[in-house]
């Protein structure tokens, strides 16, 4: 069996299939009338009650200074999230969670929940459920603070039924070579991915009453999102949405350190296709099967399954809950979505048996088994049995039950109402949660695993270090952060104006900075400066650039004496002076300091 430990897979270009997720919730206020809708008010009310440290983030590296400049506008005025920063409606008010290393912010008037990076699909399920618990707490607090007559509603879905869609994205670490093959060198890889994604709606569709976006009328369809895909590939996410998104943001090294590309050979596939799922099996398969498929693509094990017209196939498959609709492959054969999934499953099973997923996809064998079981139920079209696993099937059973008892047709407003209420994150009225409490839903992770991710980060990704550094820092010490770095600021003493020294912890490699690598240093450090010293953080200016003037001799972090630093370095196996240049002659110092107020 091949050795596919992270060290060795780096040589072949294959990387463990790290997964992140950024999920927009539907949110509005029931009982409040406003011509523009109430999404803006609702999203801000929710974010206000999310835990976490509000920090400035922007993708172009700008900085406006203090992390504690957070304020909320009145919800209508297009206010700014941070003093001096440009208002960005797609990334407003971001706050990272010291509890688990995830974050939350507002994207186009939706509360967006970002999960901490995980390696295992099972951890993804637990982290997603945990983030819903955290958001549920914010929902309860928001409603407690709301005046009588209004109620904030939050949904884990992707469409309002009125023609507006919002995403539940998942993101996967792939090699740069793999990314370039998909989008720039081997376009049959892209077509295979499109075939995989479109056919996956039989597993990951959340179900929807009716159609949108000018699509043909239908009573019930498998997918929330299918009506909104209009092109095969592209970088955009809010219009003319592509099945395979080609946005190239590695989040493994900042722009400027290789144009839009990390120098470490890492890339990130931004998958905008999937529905937001609540059933644990559906969530497991969404991430676990995609991990396997991408591991296959990365190792050039790509089945020759290419749909002749993926966009047409997607619509026809989604609009046919009987699962009988067929779509043509490039070679002329006609396949159902289940046929395509079955063919991919068989290739993936061989791939796993050969040991090619070892070290890349945790619990690959279990994922394949669950996938095979579920496809068998799909072949039988056993919707009642599938209801314990898949959202579209559970929703269909609920709606049929409600319709039968009331004589409702598919176009009845009551059924659309129930469609939306299925995904309410409030356990008091969410239909999914009622079924879960009743035991109708199969679980793949324990309540303990979920609870763990409410309070703790994963041990095996950089989310571990992110969460622990934020806990040490408190809010005032964080100047700027993104997924791959955190820049801290420390006040300089004795200055007339408030000035700061900046120290940046780079976390470009998401597979490093784990408990195994950082746990001992974090335990030994008694303070944030000590931890940064031990972890090899670098001094920067306020923009994150290296100091223009090289420091002379060993430099000290604020609050760490020379003897203390010497001891810390020895203890961590670092050179005593080393490259730890954490105080001294930054450009700003030479210019007389930078004013932040």
């Amino acid at each position, binding site marked *: 069996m091949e050795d596919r430990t992270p060290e060795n897979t780096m040589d072949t270009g294959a990387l463990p299939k790290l997964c992140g997720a950024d999920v927009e919730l*539907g949110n509005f206020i029931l009982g409040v009338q406003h011509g523009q*809708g109430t999404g803006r008010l609702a999203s801000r009310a929710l974010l206000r009650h999310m835990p976490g440290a509000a920090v400035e983030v922007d993708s172009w590296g700008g900085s406006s200074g203090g992390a504690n400049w957070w304020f909320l506008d009145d919800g209508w005025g297009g206010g700014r999230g941070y003093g001096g920063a440009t208002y960005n409606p797609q990334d407003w008010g971001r706050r990272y969670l010291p509890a688990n290393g995830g974050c939350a912010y507002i994207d186009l008037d939706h509360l967006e929940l970002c999960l901490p990076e995980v390696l295992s699909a099972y951890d993804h399920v637990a982290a997603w459920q945990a983030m819903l618990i955290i958001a549920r707490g914010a929902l309860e607090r928001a409603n407690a603070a709301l005046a009588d007559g209004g109620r904030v509603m939050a949904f884990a879905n992707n469409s309002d039924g009125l023609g507006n869609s*919002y995403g539940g*994205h998942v993101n996967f670490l792939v090699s740069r070579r793999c990314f370039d093959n998909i989008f720039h060198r081997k376009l049959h890889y892209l077509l295979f991915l499109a075939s995989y994604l479109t056919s996956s709606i039989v597993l990951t569709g959340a179900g929807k009453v009716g159609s949108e976006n000018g699509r043909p009328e239908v009573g019930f369809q498998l997918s929330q999102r299918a009506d909104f895909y209009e092109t095969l590939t592209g970088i955009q996410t809010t219009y003319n949405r592509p099945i395979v998104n080609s946005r190239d943001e590695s989040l493994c090294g900042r722009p400027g350190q290789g144009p839009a590309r990390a120098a470490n050979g890492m890339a990130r596939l931004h998958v905008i296709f999937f529905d937001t799922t609540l059933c644990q099996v559906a969530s497991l398969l969404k991430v676990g099967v995609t991990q396997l498929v991408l591991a296959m693509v990365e190792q050039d094990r790509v089945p020759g399954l290419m749909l002749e017209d993926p966009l047409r196939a997607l619509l026809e498959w989604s609009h046919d809950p009987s699962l009988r609709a067929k779509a043509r492959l490039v070679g002329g054969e006609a396949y159902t979505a289940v046929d395509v999934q079955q063919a991919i499953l068989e290739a993936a099973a061989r791939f796993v048996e050969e040991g090619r997923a070892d070290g890349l996809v945790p619990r690959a064998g279990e994922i394949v088994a669950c996938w095979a*079981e579920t496809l068998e139920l799909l072949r039988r079209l056993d919707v009642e049995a599938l209801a314990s696993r898949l959202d579209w099937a559970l929703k269909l059973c609920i709606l049929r*039950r409600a319709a039968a008892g009331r004589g409702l047709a598919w176009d009845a407003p009551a059924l659309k109402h129930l469609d939306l209420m299925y995904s309410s994150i409030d356990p008091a*009225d969410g239909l999914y949660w009622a079924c879960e409490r*009743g035991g109708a839903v199969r679980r793949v992770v324990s309540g303990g695993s979920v609870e763990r991710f409410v309070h703790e980060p994963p041990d095996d990704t950089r989310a571990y270090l992110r969460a622990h550094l934020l806990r040490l820092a408190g809010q005032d010490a964080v100047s700027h952060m993104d997924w791959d770095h955190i820049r801290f600021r420390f006040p300089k003493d004795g200055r007339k104006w408030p000035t700061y020294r900046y120290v940046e912890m780079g976390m470009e490699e998401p597979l490093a900075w784990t408990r195994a690598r950082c746990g001992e240093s974090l335990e030994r450090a008694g303070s944030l400066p000590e931890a940064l010293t031990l972890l090899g953080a670098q001094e920067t200016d306020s923009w994150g650039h290296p100091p223009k003037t090289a420091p002379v001799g060993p430099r000290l972090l604020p609050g760490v004496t020379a003897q203390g630093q010497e001891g810390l370095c020895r203890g961590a196996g670092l050179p005593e002076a080393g490259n730890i240049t954490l105080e001294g002659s930054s450009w700003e110092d030479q210019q007389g300091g930078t004013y932040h107020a």
Partner: protein
Amino acid sequence: MRERERRHNEERPAPPATAGGGNLDGLRAAGNDFLAAGDDAINRALSGDSERFLAASRQEGGE
């Protein structure tokens, strides 16, 4: 949080994970019973004005 924990303790066991076919009838029957747990939630949802609810639920288009 206390409310969530209380509900968690009341949860009933999920149906067995077998899918190979042997226990499918039982699985379906049990599933139907379990789905009845959603009836109260359905009734609560439909006790209001669905058309008003749908009009209020309009969202900003997102990603």
